[in-house]
């Protein structure tokens, strides 16, 4: 057995169904999932309690979801066959969650299709902190072994692995169903919302260049452009000549939105690409590309998923001269020649070690270095080591580029 390195600090774990597969009656799915948990609770002190009602926030340690292809976690499924499911090791946010590829033909008691019990029991092993074992016949062996006997008992390798993490248990445990009231609207949630609203209100009519966070930062023809709301500042090589903001529409004619999410200059033809919400615009210098619809073109035209709300950052990485689009904790490589994202994306932002998500912006400065922006701070990135220089921010944006102290 192999231990992942993370485990739960408690033994009374909770789980929740986010949805069900249409392949199997939901009552059967529930029974099978309980049985899959029981495989692990039979040999340890672990208990599994179902949370029946939840909020949008992380409300159960293990959340169970059926999803197809791209499903907002940076690890898209691949259609029928090959990858059947995946799960995250114990931890915050997605930690512990188990996702099942709904393009598979899930079955419960048939020899056809993919047996949900076997896959779920395996995935819960990950959710509890076990990695793949190279022992054939073990539950944590990465390859699907097909339907097993109704009276499945956990192989020795897996028993030893899970007991190493959570201790030995003699008597049987079964998951307990408990109705937990929806905690939406907790004090913590409200405080966070209030803070966000205050921040938004503060931005109304914004002209101060020293006290705020920014929407987008990019380098166009050698100069750094810093966007906030309907304004931008221009940092020319040698420093900011004029600290007063300029209206975006005064410079990029007919831009229809009141802010930008991300901007970057394409290598080919030096055209400038603006992103706002689920739309994008292309500018040739100050003018919108000929025949471009004023309301913008949909991001789906670039091969991005239809349910993508926005692009947080767009940048060309100096290390390999490729362009990347970032949204929340996922990113895509963008092929400028094809005007389309590369086929095996999105991927998880964790690859860019230490980069905070969701990002506000990312760009390459005149010094050749890549900078990632979040809030009022920037992080310098060490390209060849694929990590940020320091976990803490390298500096403050306003002080570095806006001549603020």
């Amino acid at each position, binding site marked *: 057995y*192999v231990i*992942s390195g993370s485990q739960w600090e408690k033994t009374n774990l909770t789980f929740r169904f986010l949805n069900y597969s249409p392949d199997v009656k939901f009552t059967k799915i529930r029974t099978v999932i309980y049985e899959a948990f029981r495989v692990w609770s039979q040999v340890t002190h672990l208990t599994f309690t179902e949370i029946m009602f939840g909020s949008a926030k992380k409300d159960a340690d293990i959340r169970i979801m059926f999803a197809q292809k791209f499903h907002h976690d940076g*690890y898209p*499924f691949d259609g029928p*066959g*090959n*990858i*059947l*499911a*995946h*799960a995250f090791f114990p931890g915050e946010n997605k930690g512990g969650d188990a996702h099942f*590829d709904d393009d598979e033909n899930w079955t419960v008691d048939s020899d056809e299709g*993919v047996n949900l019990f076997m*896959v779920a029991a*395996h*995935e819960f092993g*990950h959710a509890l902190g076990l*990695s*793949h074992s*190279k022992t*054939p016949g073990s539950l944590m062996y*990465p*390859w*699907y072994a097909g339907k097993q006997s109704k009276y499945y008992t956990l192989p020795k390798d897996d028993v030893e692995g899970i007991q190493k993490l959570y201790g030995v248990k003699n008597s049987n445990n079964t998951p307990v169903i408990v109705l937990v009231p929806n905690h939406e609207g907790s004090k913590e949630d409200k405080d966070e919302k209030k803070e966000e609203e205050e921040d938004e209100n503060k931005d109304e009519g914004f002209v101060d260049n020293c006290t705020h966070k920014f929407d987008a930062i990019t380098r166009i023809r050698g100069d750094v452009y810093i966007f906030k709301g309907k304004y931008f500042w221009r940092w020319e090589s040698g420093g900011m000549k004029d600290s007063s903001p300029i209206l975006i529409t005064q410079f990029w004619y007919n831009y229809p939105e009141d802010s930008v999410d991300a901007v970057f200059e394409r290598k080919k033809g030096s055209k400038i690409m603006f992103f706002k919400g689920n739309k994008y615009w292309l500018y040739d210098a100050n003018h919108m590309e000929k025949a471009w619809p004023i309301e913008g073109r949909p991001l789906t035209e670039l091969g991005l998923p239809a349910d993508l709300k926005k692009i947080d950052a767009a940048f060309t990485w100096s290390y*390999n001269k490729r362009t990347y689009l970032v949204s929340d904790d996922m990113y895509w490589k963008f092929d400028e020649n094809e005007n389309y994202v590369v086929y*095996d994306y999105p*991927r998880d932002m964790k*690859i860019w*070690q230490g980069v905070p998500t969701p990002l506000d912006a990312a760009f390459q400065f005149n010094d050749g270095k890549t900078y990632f922006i979040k809030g009022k701070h920037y992080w310098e990135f060490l390209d060849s*080591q*694929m*990590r940020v220089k320091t976990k803490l921010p390298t500096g403050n944006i306003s002080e570095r580029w806006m001549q603020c102290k």
Partner: protein
Amino acid sequence: QPRTQRSAGTNIQKKGMKYLMEFGYVNGPSLEMENLMSEEAQVKAIRRFQAFANLPLTGRLDHRTIEWMEKPRCGNKDTLPEDTWGNERKKR
């Protein structure tokens, strides 16, 4: 080789390397480095996979290796024991 065979071979190689990166057999910092892999690194990665799957260690994407790569599986990475990486980590 005829051109079609050659390009089929390249596709298999590319697909195989993607699989090895996706499932943790490449001793590199990131999937973003995929174009920069040397032939030696590719052979090592294939051998690691073959060792994990209990296949003959040919270092090539032979039909048994490809067959194994096409089997249904869990999407999580395979964590390899420290000694699987040989001297590479010690050197660094």
